[in-house]
């Protein structure tokens, strides 16, 4: 990465990089055309029509409608291409592929905390495999930050109280800058890190070394210690809604509206449970505001994501994520025990040990 000579483009290390660079080229070409054109005319007129004496009597200016229309229509057309092109890339940036591998990011003055689904944590470093779409779900513990990887040509603000998504597919192994792009206080310029793109093999080896419990496991523990089980299980006295299949479900609310249960809604359900009451339930859930960190919330959410609806008892059929193969996703294990909440011991047994080992070999 380091080089003493001036370069003009950052490294191209994601599937977006070339696309953005090509758009940059087009924009630069159009701009160069107009700049050279206008400056050329100014120089030309300056020479041709320079004042020779006060006796010069320039004629009355006549307007030329056709000319005026031309120089409205042509730039509009060229800008329309810019618009479409920019929008097309933006659409791709906004739509992560379904099979993306999830990583959770929490920004905090002044560091980046990263959690992988297998529970591995990093600070100011993010290891990813090459050639795999990776989807980041990001939030902040304090002020707004912005997660920016120049070599991938992507960034997204990381906003407290909500979740932003960012996805990329790295195309070239290496170490790249990670910057915070939204001003966030004293050490804003120190809130930097690296993205380390590895060959799949190296990545697996790197992941394999980890002994942390998976994100979903941690969430499951919280689900017990925070007392969620006492209401969100089949045999509890106070009834809370059944959380199986909650993620991505269309939840009908008390006021009749329907909302998709994604990160933001789930977070709100924990911190301000009465803001959007689920239909058929009373405001019985306590607020967990101030009782858990953003990272714990992410763990709970990632646990709730594993609670796939129990339609058949062969849970394995509903495991699209195993397709990710080499990247073991231990969060799938709880599904094998359809009701983890009611049978905690069974689940715990299943999940004990290295997540890698608990995964059925492919």
């Amino acid at each position, binding site marked *: *990465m380091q080089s003493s*000579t*001036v*370069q003009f483009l950052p490294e191209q290390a994601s599937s977006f990089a070339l696309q*953005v660079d090509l758009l940059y080229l087009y*924009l630069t070409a159009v*701009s160069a055309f*107009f*700049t050279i054109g*206008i*400056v050329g005319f*100014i120089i030309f*007129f*300056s020479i041709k*029509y320079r*004042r020779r004496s006060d006796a*010069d*009597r*320039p*004629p009355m*200016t006549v*307007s030329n409608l056709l000319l*005026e229309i031309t*120089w409205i229509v042509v*730039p*509009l057309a060229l*800008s329309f291409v*810019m*618009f479409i092109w*920019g*929008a097309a890339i*933006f*659409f791709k*940036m906004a739509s992560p592929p379904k099979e993306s591998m999830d990583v959770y990011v929490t920004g905090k*003055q002044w560091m980046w905390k990263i959690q992988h689904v297998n529970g591995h944590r990093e600070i100011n470093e993010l290891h990813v495999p090459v050639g795999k779409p990776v989807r980041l779900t990001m939030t902040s513990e*304090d*002020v*707004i930050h912005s997660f*920016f990887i*120049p*070599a991938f*040509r*992507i*960034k*997204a*603000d990381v*906003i*407290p*109280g909500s979740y932003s998504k960012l996805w990329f597919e790295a195309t070239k192994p290496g170490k790249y*800058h990670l*910057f*915070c*792009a939204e*001003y966030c*206080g*004293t050490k*804003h*310029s120190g809130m*930097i890190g690296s993205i380390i793109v590895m060959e799949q093999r190296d990545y697996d080896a790197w992941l394999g070394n980890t002994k942390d419990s998976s994100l979903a496991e941690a969430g499951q523990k919280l689900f017990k210690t925070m007392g969620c089980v006492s209401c969100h299980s089949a045999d509890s006295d106070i009834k809370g809604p059944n959380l199986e299949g909650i993620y991505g479900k269309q939840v009908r609310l008390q006021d009749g509206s329907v909302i998709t249960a994604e990160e933001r809604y789930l977070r709100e359900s924990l911190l*301000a449970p009465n803001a959007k009451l689920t239909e058929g339930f009373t405001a019985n859930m306590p607020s967990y505001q101030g009782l858990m960190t953003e990272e714990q919330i992410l763990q709970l959410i990632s646990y709730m994501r594993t609670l796939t609806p129990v339609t058949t008892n062969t849970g394995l059929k509903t495991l699209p994520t195993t397709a990710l193969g080499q990247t073991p996703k231990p969060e799938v294990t709880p599904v094998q025990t359809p009701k983890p909440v009611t049978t905690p011991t069974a689940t715990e047994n299943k999940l004990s040990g290295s997540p890698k080992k608990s995964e059925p070999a492919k």
Partner: protein
Amino acid sequence: MSAHVIESKPLVVEHKEEQENYLTAGYTLKSWFLTLDHKRIAILYLLSVTTMFFVGGIFASLMRLELMTPQSDLFEPDNFNKLFTMHGIVMVFFFIIPAVPGVLGNFLLPLMIGAKDVAFPRLNLLSWYVYIVGAAFTMFTIVSGGVDTGWTFYTPYSTSSSQTHVVPVVLGLFITGFSSILTGLNFMVTIHRMRAPGLSWFRLPLMVWSIYATSIIQILGTPVIAVTLMMAALEKVLRIGIFDPNLGGDPVLFQHLFWFYSHPAVYIMIVPGMGVINEVVTCFSRRSIFGYRAIAFANVGFVVFSFVVWGHHMIVAGQSVYSALIFSILSYLVGIFSAIKVFNWTATMYKGSISFDTPMLYVFGFQGLFLIGGLTGLFLAALGFDVHVHDTYFVVAHFHYVMVGGLVMAFLAGIHFWWPKMFGKKYPESIAKFAMILVFAGFNLTFFPQFILGYLGMPRRYASYPDEFQVLNVMSTAGGSVLGLGFLLIAAYMVWSLVFGKKAGMNPWKATGLEWEHTTSPPPTENFYETPIVNEDPYNYANRDFTKDFNKEVKLGA
């Protein structure tokens, strides 16, 4: 365009030149600080905005010094953060927004429309005092500790994290906002009510259209920022949850409100400068403006469209894909109005009789730099591109090309152009040309490398940066010193010219316009010796005989 000249009975003014003018009308401090004369108020503004420009410039120079090396070594990071915040606040709110309307607008508007003064002279003086109180308030807080939020005051950083003096600064800006609103109101009423006989809307110099458009934006937009900043202050002091999610607020709401004003504000900054360009380019081409109506209506376009594109500052702030699309396409539409103007100014030179006095050189500078500033705006409106360069030095370069390359160039064009009218003295022409070249070269050396830096990924508001960005940063700092020298040189010879400058005569450029042809330099307190009557289109250069001496006689009403 109508092409008939009505020769008026000329008034020979030589004997009048030694007579009283607005500058000699009184020498006491009181005669300045309690003046109701729009021309004197313009001079008060000139002094204050120039002071602010140099204050902001000192902050900028200190930042550029720090950025010569990758480490943060000259200042503590906290102090660097205060520097860019104060630079931004001073330059935006105390220099660039009031510069052209406050100085050139105040001085010229009544003169250009043949009026004795603005509609509400007392209100006009009040505007200046409000500005001074706001500025004093802000400067005092800056001296007593400063503020570190960036001039954008993004929440929840400003309301819940920053330990600096956010509230007093915000109050200072709140106060200053009233100055902007009152000036806008005053100018609008003046344009509606005080035009000389015969001066119909389409005979107005385009500078007046620009001031009119700017005034509307000021009146509509400024209350929004005032209220927004107040809400932030309330949240900070009383912990009412408006923007901080921990208090139940929405941080992005602040950005919406902030940019709902601050995008139109970039038109408050640039449109008056465009007005200046119209006057100068026609005079030094001796041509009437190409496409008068297109330019006039482009101003209306700015007023309407500037209020609907704020979201392009928030592409990566989590708005929906669809709102991003709408903001993107609207941004392209607003761009076209600037394009029309640039094309028309260029076409105005066609078949002209072009001379290269300093004001015209600044017009050339404006054309080139504003063009780059505007075109890179189109880059930023392309969504997929903005994602990469948002909040990097690319944006810093873009807005400096628009604001310094555009507005400051136009302001300097105007100051040089009307200097003889304002003070009756000529500035030294060849030094002025040299200074223009310094400013132009220094500017490009400072800011062009920043486009590359930004694309390479250097984020803005960084006190330290990775080593590989150093070469470009050193270039930028070197350019900054040339630029700074240029500005200092201009200030020096302008002051020099007040004492030693050659007498200018009433119309040294042989320009058209009431302020040039119908009154002396400097004008008398009541502006005109007799109310002018307008019977021709503006920029009627085709009907002037330039072999005559334009300095001799004042045209009176027909």
